[in-house]
């Protein structure tokens, strides 16, 4: 129950924000917002003892039970880690944003989006029901879109927002399809139940498709190659947003998905290879591209991509353990997953700190271009220290938490060589090599962050503002993160015991309570391959950094210039062109054409359907007798109707229409419908007078200028439609498939106390229709009023581009 509330509190707070913002229209509003994630963080912390002892909490609120969609929340070790990250980093980011954003920005919007994101992200990780998860998943994409486009007057922001939305949402839709396939296979939307029963379905053809589609969702969200291109462009968002969404939380939703579905799909070769290979390649590609960036934020974006790849590949390696089931040998492969979860936490701490540092530099100096920066160490000592801690941790140096998880990464990737399954062979050797090279590059760009920014020559002439230390409030949040970076290094096993071990049990349900699932994290392992690799990374990385300018030329060689970005742009332009061509092909702008489509479709489907199914059957035996008066009225109406077509003046036409209307009123009397007759008479009168009123302003109608063929086509279509309608109606009357339900309404007096059946239907039995009808009437009234009163004004100047 608490967990359900945890999801909704941010949304509720988001609703309140505009009202608070009216009262407190300055940045102090951030302090109110800060209470939300902080409170949630504390709430979640209180669950830690129970969760670490293996308890899980499930709470269900029925939503659409008939479709198996319920609002089920599930708290276990895995969602706990993410929940703490979301609320914890969220609190720090909001604290930071109070000082980062100026009061001139539309802070109200900012915090609404941010809280919306927080709520939906919590929804993603706590939802057990796949449909609910999907809804929240897309909500995170939407709030991310809104946050990236926060400075919407900038063209780049809009571009980045659109790109991220397009890529993540298309991945999300693929994932949705995958979820539906899983539902078809297992008959349930609950993740926990799918995990229990999936073993029976692994041979099904849909299983593989479901896996690939779910992976697509995860890869797009977590910016894995080749979908990573949206993340660098998403850096147009305000820095707190980048720190929060695009490094600590949202991009980890994909990783969460992979972890959550490891018990479902893990143990399959396809899953193992696709997750691992994509992860490792992303790791390499991200770090390679990071080295050549000159914008600090872009550098961090690529480094995030690379680190996400690292975590992803570890989950891939770890899934191998599920293939063999529990044994003393296979448990060693679970270490990869352990490392992944550990690195996940570490990454959030050091990357969050680094983003905030870059934000401070940007905020104080007005630039984050490393070519213009340098020598800031003495001017911004605190910022420098935080940056140093963050980067060295990312590079995998002691005494920071990154060292521990990096070591474990090397260890598991070396272990993977001995993996007996899936024909590892050459791959087994290739993985460590790529991983090692990527780590060297990681080391290089970490050095770039620290040394190019803070050492070297200070260039005041190339800066817009004078360099000075950031305000204390801004430094507080990254300092807390940096503290954790160091603290986790010295006390890693606290994290291991309370957070990682329950999460491991969530990822490996069959291994629950098994020996060796949760290893001791130690700093010193002895001279194992992992340590040697780390030393190699430091030596080679340092050399590469020193001689950076000599080998930077490789980025200008041809294959490096092929960019997925231009491919994406071309694709986008082509799609736009194609769709606009297609649309203008049939959207001609002529009402007649549209109506022709509709009527032709009608004739073909209904008429064709009648022909094909041989549905004609005329049965006139039940017809009521016709009196001579009725014949007269019918023929008058037919005559009037046809005469309208040939009316020379609009007055004639409208009077003939009146004849039709009043004749129908007479028929209503004949057909025992007094209510209808009354209504029809009044409505007809009002309508006719409306027509006449409007004629006062409209020109006399001229002779139709259409060509003869066009008229002939109109005539043929009209006659065909009329015929189809008549035949259809007659056939319907011939077949009475069901008995009428009207008998029910004849108990109106007992049920509603009314004796007029028609009005009891309107007011009691089908009041919903009537209510909506009233609403329609009201809308029409408003429409008329606005059309008449509000003349089109000149449009204001468009807010476009910087």
């Amino acid at each position, binding site marked *: 129950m608490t967990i359900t509330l945890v999801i909704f509190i941010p949304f509720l707070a988001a609703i309140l924000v505009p009202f608070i913002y009216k009262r407190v229209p300055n940045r102090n509003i951030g302090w109110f917002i800060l209470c939300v994630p902080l409170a949630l963080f504390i709430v979640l912390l209180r669950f830690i003892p129970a969760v670490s002892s293996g308890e899980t909490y499930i709470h269900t609120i029925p939503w659409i039970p008939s479709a198996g969609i319920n609002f089920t929340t599930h708290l276990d070790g895995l969602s706990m880690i993410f929940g703490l990250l979301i609320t914890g980093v969220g609190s720090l980011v909001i604290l930071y944003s109070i000082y980062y954003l100026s009061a001139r920005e539309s802070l109200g919007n900012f915090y609404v989006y941010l809280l919306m994101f927080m709520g939906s992200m919590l929804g993603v990780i706590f939802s057990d029901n796949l449909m609910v998860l999907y809804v929240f998943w897309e909500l995170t994409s939407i709030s991310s879109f809104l946050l990236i486009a926060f400075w919407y007057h900038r063209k780049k922001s809009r571009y980045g927002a659109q790109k991220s939305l397009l890529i993540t949402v298309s991945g999300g839709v693929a994932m949705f399809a995958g979820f539906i396939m899983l539902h078809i296979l297992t008959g349930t939307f609950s993740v926990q139940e799918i995990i229990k029963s999936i073993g029976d379905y692994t041979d099904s053809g849909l299983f593989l498709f479901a896996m690939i589609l779910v992976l697509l969702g995860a890869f797009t969200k977590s910016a894995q190659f080749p979908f990573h291109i949206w993340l660098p462009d998403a850096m147009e968002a305000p820095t707190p947003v980048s720190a929060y969404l695009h490094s600590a939380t949202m991009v980890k939703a994909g990783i969460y998905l992979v972890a959550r579905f490891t018990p479902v799909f893990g143990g399959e070769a396809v899953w193992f290879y696709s997750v691992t290979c994509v992860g490792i390649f992303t790791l390499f590609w991200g770090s390679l591209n990071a080295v050549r960036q000159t914008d600090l934020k872009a550098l961090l974006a690529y480094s995030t991509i690379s680190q996400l790849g690292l975590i992803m590949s570890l989950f891939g390696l770890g899934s191998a353990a599920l293939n063999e089931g529990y044994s003393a040998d296979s448990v060693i492969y679970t270490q990869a997953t352990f490392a992944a979860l550990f690195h996940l936490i570490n990454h959030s701490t050091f990357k969050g700190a680094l983003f905030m540092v870059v934000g401070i530099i940007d905020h104080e100096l007005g630039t984050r271009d490393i070519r213009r920066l340098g020598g800031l160490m003495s001017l911004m000592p605190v910022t420098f220290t935080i940056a140093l801690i963050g980067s060295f941790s990312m590079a995998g140096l002691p005494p920071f938490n990154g060292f521990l998880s990096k070591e474990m990464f090397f260890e598991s990737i070396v272990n993977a060589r001995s993996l007996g399954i899936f024909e590892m062979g050459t791959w087994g050797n290739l993985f460590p090599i790529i991983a090692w090279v990527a780590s060297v590059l990681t080391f290089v760009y970490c050095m770039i962050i620290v040394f190019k920014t803070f050492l070297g020559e200070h260039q005041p002439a190339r800066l817009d503002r004078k360099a000075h230390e950031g305000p204390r409030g801004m430094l507080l949040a990254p300092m807390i993160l940096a503290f954790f970076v160091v603290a986790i290094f010295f006390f890693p096993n606290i994290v291991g015991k309370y957070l990682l071990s329950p999460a491991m049990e969530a990822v490996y349900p069959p291994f629950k309570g098994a020996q060796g699932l949760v290893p001791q994290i130690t700093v010193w392992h002895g001279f194992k391959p992992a340590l040697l690799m780390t030393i190699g990374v430091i030596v080679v990385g340092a050399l590469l950094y020193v001689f950076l300018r000599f080998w930077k030329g490789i980025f200008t060689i041809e294959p490096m210039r092929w960019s997925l970005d231009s491919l994406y742009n071309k694709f986008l332009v082509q799609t736009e062109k194609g769709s606009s061509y297609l649309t203008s092909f049939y959207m001609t702008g002529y009402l007649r054409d549209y109506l022709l489509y509709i009527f032709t479709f009608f004739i073909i489907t209904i008429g064709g359907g009648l022909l094909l199914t041989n549905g004609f059957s005329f049965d006139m035996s039940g017809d009521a007798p016709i009196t001579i008066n009725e014949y007269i009225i019918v023929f008058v109406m037919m005559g009037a109707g046809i005469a309208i077509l040939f009316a020379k003046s609009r007055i004639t036409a409208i009077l003939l229409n009146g004849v039709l209307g009043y004749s129908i009123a007479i028929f209503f009397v004949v057909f025992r419908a007094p209510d209808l007759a009354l209504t029809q008479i009044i409505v007809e009168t009002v309508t006719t007078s409306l027509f006449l009123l409007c004629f006062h302003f409209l020109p006399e109608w001229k002779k139709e200028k259409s060509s003869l063929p066009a008229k002939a086509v109109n005539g043929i279509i009209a006659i065909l439609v009329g015929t189809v309608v008549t035949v259809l109606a007659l056939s319907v009357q011939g077949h009475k498939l069901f008995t009428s339900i009207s008998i029910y309404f004849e108990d109106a007096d007992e049920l509603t106390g009314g004796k007029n059946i028609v009005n009891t239907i309107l*007011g009691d039995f089908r009041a919903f229709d009537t209510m909506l009808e009233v609403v329609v009437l009201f809308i029409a009234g408003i429409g008329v009023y606005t059309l008449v009163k509000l003349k089109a004004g000149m449009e204001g100047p468009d807010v476009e581009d910087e």
Partner: protein
Amino acid sequence: MKTNDVILRTVTKIVVFIILTFGVELFLSGHNNPGGGFIGGLVLSSAFVLLYLVFDVETVHKGIPFDFKKIAAFGVLLAVGTGVGAVIFGSSFLTQTFRELHLPVFGNTELATVVLFEAGVALTVVGVVVTIILSISEDV
């Protein structure tokens, strides 16, 4: 539109009240006999339209100082509100109820919540029809 037709004016003054009474009667009898919210509303609005036709807009506006847009909005609110009211009492949306009562003067009378709903309908119809006609005729 300023006309100076004495006969029309005199007749209208009387006829309007007959129409109004007829409209109210139709509205009230709707549950058991022909009539109801729509018809009642339409008849009432035709009375108003007649007034506007015979006297000019300003004169009528002095006599009936209502904003018909607001009447329409109020009608919609009433119609939806009765539905919500049912929810508050624990039934489904738009559930109507009725009770036979013995009132001193009227004898056995039936009171039904549907009357409120129908009143909402009638008010909307009056408001919308008059708004439409007025908007068009004012825009010359």
